[in-house]
């Protein structure tokens, strides 16, 4: 039994009280004296040359304070890509400048090219309508294949191509992989699309810029998943100011899913305007702007081939992918289709030979970047779909073909052919657990019941592994990362024994305030109520790379654990002095420092008090105070894994697919709060079901966004998802971090889409529609019906 409020307890989320009673404090809830408002004027065409922007009439409109255009920001730096990727031929990727506001050209519908600052938002908007922009329409580059072969219509003229890079992973494997294919007894080929998604965080992006002319300090309140990263990008790269002159505060943030990792031009623009006007400037995106300008996710077109023996043993895997980066390189956009995608292409299997090729393409669409799972859902989807197709071609049961190829527990640590070393796992255990909790044996009976009701039932599986806990800095440095990916924490014990923990992780819905308090309280043997978690403010936090890539617990949580251990170590020194014992004889347990083998003891509170009121204290050898900071850089990625089963019911008259059940057997390593982990899995699988059945960001051939509102962009609703069966009892604790934790934030979104699509194909095959080998996501009723009725 876990201790109440300690590690392993399903402690209720303390932050929910303020969220559910309307007391959350989001960026838009913050209002500064004298605040003005920004409205960004966005391109209505996908591609156009800016000839002239006449702001004269607009500037004379009521309430207008200033109007800035791309010209006003040319002296500033570009918003950089965080990873430098090299092409197969050794060339560095093409890195066109991403300016604060579009300059020279507009490159996607929604590309901001002017900003009006006025006394009120309505006035700013009214004035923006009077800006006379002379923009020459250019042909839009939308389709990736066409973009690659086009040498005249270029998104960025100065780079001479629409290709950002052509990446091979691992290039040295290529010949051996091709050779294996040349002699393979069986080859399964599948062409598929990983559909483009709009993140749709509940809170739209917002920024409030402030400048203090007395000190020259800037302050930015913004919707960020990583305030320090924002500070670095804005200060060091874009605006060119010392980092110590900028404070970035990300208060309560209503969801991000990746989209709020990145620095966007609006943030620098409000800061610059605040300085020019000497007034705070606020901008809050409307939902329409979110659709147009938040970084989208996924958007891959892939050909995947799997070479096997006649009885389904995997011999080699080869993929060719076109990945859309949109009009500009967003901060993680070059890492997502490469090192977050190619490196996990081995999945949980022992496939000996793998080669991945990815061409990234500029198009006149919004930038595309990491979205929950980032690259790993794309890899998992390709892999689990081709395995499913292969099993059908060879007449092998879906579970059987997976079981046959899964790595076995004795193979860990396992060096994959695509560059990673899996530290630990037991993939058979999760598949066995799934077989049990999903009652796979009872499927036929359930299918018969569905059939009686006129419905086609299908079963889809997915066994997956991902790499998260991002990331070991030296490794990613070799792979092209331009930042380190460690994290930090300060544990500040107050004189009265309660604790503030400053963490570099950022909670935008995850429940960190609860879980981190559990971890610290558990390790110190004190009540969780005595621990407060502070996050989201660069002026309070030592440093931190924020939250994404399922890193908060395994990286930031590990930093916190190290800091707590330093507190304990110092506490032992203080206790040794007070108890007149040798430091080596002091034991710390359940909040008490005691001399081994005696009943002499001091409570944690007494030690803390002594540290701040050092009357009886070894001042000659020890500083007063009880506060420790630790930085933690992981030795490796972590490798959560799992086995998912989805059952669908398909209405053969309409093609409508209902998720009948969804079961997850996950290995997240040690689990800190099972309830929160369940919630993460529910949410992730919900997003995966959304991708599989409903969501699809669509541009027409002119680059106009067809899914610009919730009237056309289909989000999953409660009635689209089932009651989930979630298990995380098959734990193989991570071997290289102090918590043994692997991370669970992205798992659901990674493992679920292929299970859903596999189930739909299964339902169709069992009903005799064996000509349907694939349907692209979203598997909408219209697409299913068309597939069933294709000649």
């Amino acid at each position, binding site marked *: 039994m876990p201790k109440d409020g300690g590690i392993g307890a399903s402690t209720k989320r303390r932050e929910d009280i303020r969220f559910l009673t309307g007391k959350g404090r989001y960026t838009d809830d913050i209002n500064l004296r004298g605040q003005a408002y920004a409205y960004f004027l966005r391109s209505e065409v996908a591609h156009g040359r800016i000839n002239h922007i006449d702001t004269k009439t607009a500037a004379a409109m009521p309430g207008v304070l200033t109007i800035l255009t791309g010209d006003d920001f040319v002296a500033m730096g570009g918003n950089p890509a965080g990873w430098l990727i090299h092409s197969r031929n050794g060339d560095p990727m093409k890195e066109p400048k991403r300016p604060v506001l579009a300059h020279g050209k507009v490159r996607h519908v929604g590309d901001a090219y002017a900003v009006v600052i006025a006394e009120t938002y309505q006035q700013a908007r009214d004035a923006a309508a009077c800006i006379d922009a002379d923009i020459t329409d250019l042909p839009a580059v939308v389709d990736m294949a066409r973009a690659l072969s086009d040498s005249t219509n270029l998104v960025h003229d100065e780079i001479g191509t629409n290709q950002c890079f052509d990446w091979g992973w691992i290039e040295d494997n290529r010949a051996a992989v091709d050779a294996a294919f040349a002699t393979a007894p069986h080859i399964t080929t599948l062409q598929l699309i990983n559909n483009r998604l709009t993140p749709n965080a509940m809170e739209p992006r917002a920024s409030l810029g402030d400048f203090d002319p007395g000190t020259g300090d800037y302050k930015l309140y913004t919707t960020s998943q990583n305030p320090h990263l924002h500070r670095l990008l804005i200060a060091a790269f874009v605006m060119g100011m010392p980092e110590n002159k900028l404070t970035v505060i990300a208060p309560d943030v209503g969801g991000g899913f990746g989209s709020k990792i990145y620095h966007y031009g609006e943030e620098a623009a409000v800061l610059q305007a605040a300085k020019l006007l000497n007034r705070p400037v606020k901008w809050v995106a409307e939902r329409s702007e979110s659709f147009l300008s938040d970084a989208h996710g996924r958007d891959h077109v892939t050909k995947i081939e799997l070479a096997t023996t006649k009885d389904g043993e995997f011999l080699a895997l080869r993929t060719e992918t076109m990945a859309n980066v949109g009009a500009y390189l967003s901060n993680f956009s070059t890492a997502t289709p490469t090192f977050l995608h190619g490196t996990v292409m081995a999945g949980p299997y022992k496939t000996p030979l793998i080669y991945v090729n990815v061409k990234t393409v500029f198009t006149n669409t919004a930038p595309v970047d990491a979205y929950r799972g980032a690259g790993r859902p794309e890899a998992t989807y390709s892999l689990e779909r081709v395995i499913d197709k292969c099993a059908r071609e060879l007449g092998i049961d879906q579970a059987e073909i997976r079981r046959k190829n899964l790595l076995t527990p004795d193979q860990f640590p396992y060096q994959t052919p695509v560059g990673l070393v899996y530290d630990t796992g037991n993939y058979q255990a999760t598949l066995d657990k799934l077989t049990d909790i999903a009652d796979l044996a009872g499927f036929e009976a359930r299918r018969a019941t569905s059939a009686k009701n006129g419905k086609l039932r299908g079963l889809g599986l997915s066994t997956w592994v991902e790499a998260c806990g991002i990331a070991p800095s030296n490794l990613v440095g070799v792979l092209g990362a331009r930042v380190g990916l460690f994290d930090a924490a300060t544990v500040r014990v107050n004189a009265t024994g309660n604790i503030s923990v400053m963490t570099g992780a950022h909670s935008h819905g995850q429940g960190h305030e609860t879980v981190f308090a559990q971890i610290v309280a558990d390790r110190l043997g004190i009540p969780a109520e005595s621990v407060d978690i502070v996050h989201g403010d660069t002026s309070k936090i030592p440093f931190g790379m924020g939250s994404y890539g399922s890193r908060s617990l395994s990286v930031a949580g590990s930093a916190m654990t190290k800091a707590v251990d330093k507190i304990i170590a110092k506490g032992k020194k203080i206790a040794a002095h007070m108890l007149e014992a040798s430091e080596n004889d002091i034991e710390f347990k359940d909040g008490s420092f005691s001399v081994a083998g005696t009943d002499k003891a001091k409570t944690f509170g007494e030690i803390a008090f002594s540290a701040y009121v050092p009357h009886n204290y070894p001042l000659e050898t020890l500083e007063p105070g009880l506060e420790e900071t630790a930085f933690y850089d992981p030795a490796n990625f972590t490798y959560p894994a799992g086995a998912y089963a989805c059952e669908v019911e398909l209405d053969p008259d309409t093609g409508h697919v209902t998720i009948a059940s969804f079961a997850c057997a996950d290995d997240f390593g040690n689990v800190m709060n099972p309830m929160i982990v369940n919630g993460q899995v529910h949410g992730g699988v919900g997003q995966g079901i959304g991708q599989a059945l409903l969501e699809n960001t669509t541009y027409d051939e002119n680059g106009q966004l067809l899914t610009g509102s919730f009237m056309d962009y289909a989000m999953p609703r409660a009635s689209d998802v089932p009651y989930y069966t979630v298990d995380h009892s098959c734990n193989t604790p991570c071997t290289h971090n102090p918590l043994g934790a692997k991370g669970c934030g992205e798992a659901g979104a990674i493992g679920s889409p292929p299970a859903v699509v596999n189930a739909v194909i299964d339902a169709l095959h069992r009903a005799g529609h064996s000509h349907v080998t694939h349907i692209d996501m979203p598997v909408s*009723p219209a697409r299913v019906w068309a597939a069933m009725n294709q000649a």
Partner: protein
Amino acid sequence: MYDFTLVKPKNLADAVAAIADGAQALSGGQTLLPTMKQRLADPGTLVSLSGIPELHGVCKGDGGIIIGGATPHAVVAREAAKYYPALAALANQIGDPAVRNRGTIGGSIANNDPSACYPAAALGSGAIIQTNTREIAADDYFRGMFETALHEGEIVTGVKFPVPQKAAYIKFVQPASRFALVGAFVAQFADGVRVAITGASNNGVFRWAEAEAALSANFAPKALMGLTLPADDMISDLHGTAEYRAHLCGVMVKRAVMAA
């Protein structure tokens, strides 16, 4: 949103007068307000119909039930159930609770969205649209996508629904908006069957004559065997091709017959 003035008349005559001055009617606002927020409409003055008692309520009159033009969907769902269950069920499937508590039958009928639900009920029931100046048969009222027989400034004061012996509305939802991708309203009267379909056609809600004839002869799903609609005039968009919609018309009508 652009600035606007809101007028809240207490009776129909004042509302008519205000609208005659060039103002626009505001009923539940579920269509109009989102349009205004996007600055796609700038009505200047809005005349709220919600405070006019004579436009509210569900009552039984001769030849059917009359629903006041400003009656919200939720009220219809609740109060029409005992007179006309199929109509109440339709109202209960419109949007979400917030939409149903604000949106009104008059607004829906006046707007005549090609994917809206009420037009199918009105046409499928042979309803009479009542306005401040006249009564219009549903067959003459719906004139194509967002087009009606209403004159400038004319207000829908009520809709009179003859109550059939049997009826049902089956809607196949567009996955994002949950409006009708295709919705079929089937009503059996003593003198024949009416079938109205929404969501499918480029010309808005329409009656399917062949299905009506077949079902009037035999009100059973099998009467529809072999009947299909041409895809030529069907809507084709992100959510379904014209062919798919034409197919769904048949499926939805069949299911409505089974549910009636």
